[in-house]
């Protein structure tokens, strides 16, 4: 069942990602990305990260991507124009990305035994497991994110404010 679920949702992920790449309308891209993110949430569940699965849905699908769609709607973004941007992007970008993928995939596959197998229900990380590490070992990074968020708020306010 694990494998079946994996194949289904991994397939959804890849399909969504490719769709993001191929669609020309930003809203379609956004929706494909939501599909990717939600499927990833399921994969997280399969890997035993239930808190993160929920967080994934809440934060990514529920907040970040809503923001994206909101902005797409607000700016009434139309279809992508087919301008020919930098040729370099095509010349170097695709092979580069493909090379990266090939390299990583090769390593992952060739060393797959060293990574082990994931079984359903094993190593389930509960919220309290996470919080124990979060509030002890990683207390400072956690506290510091507050500064980050403060900056984001300040920035959004400062940038979005109307000129007086």
């Amino acid at each position, binding site marked *: 069942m694990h494998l079946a679920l994996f194949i289904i949702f991994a397939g959804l992920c890849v399909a969504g990602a490719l769709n993001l790449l191929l669609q020309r309308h930003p809203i379609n891209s956004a929706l494909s990305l939501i599909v990717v993110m939600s499927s990833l949430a399921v994969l997280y569940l399969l890997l035993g990260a239930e808190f993160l699965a929920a967080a994934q849905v809440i934060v990514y699908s529920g907040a970040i991507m809503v923001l994206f769609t909101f902005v797409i709607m607000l700016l009434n973004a139309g279809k992508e124009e087919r*301008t020919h941007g930098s040729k370099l992007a095509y010349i170097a970008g695709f092979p580069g990305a493909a090379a990266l993928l090939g390299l990583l995939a090769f390593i992952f596959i060739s060393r797959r035994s060293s*990574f082990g197998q994931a079984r359903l229900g094993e190593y389930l990380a509960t919220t309290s497991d996470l919080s124990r590490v979060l509030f002890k070992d990683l207390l400072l990074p956690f506290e510091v994110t507050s500064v980050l968020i403060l900056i984001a708020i300040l920035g959004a306010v400062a940038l979005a404010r109307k000129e007086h």
Partner: protein
Amino acid sequence: MVPIAYYLVLSAILFSIGVAAFLIKRNIITVFMSIELMLNAVNLAFIAFSRQWSQVTGHLQVNGQIFVFFVMVVAAAEAAVGLAIIIAVFRARNTLNVDSIDLMKL
């Protein structure tokens, strides 16, 4: 039972698609979305590695998962700021095409 390597390969695929999309998409918002896709790929890698190390050490390792938590927070902050910037640019230029944002030539 699924080899964790599959998850990692998936993450590599998503990351590469993200990179490609970043480079070839022409709409700013979509470009930004491809960054989000890359971050998601990273998250998957973190969780998979976290699981791998749980297996290697024999007890639960959550450090990788916590990383993901932070990435999410950061991504949210980034999205807020980034979209504010995009709106500001749109106000000034009335376009969302990357190639049109060219008042300053490289």
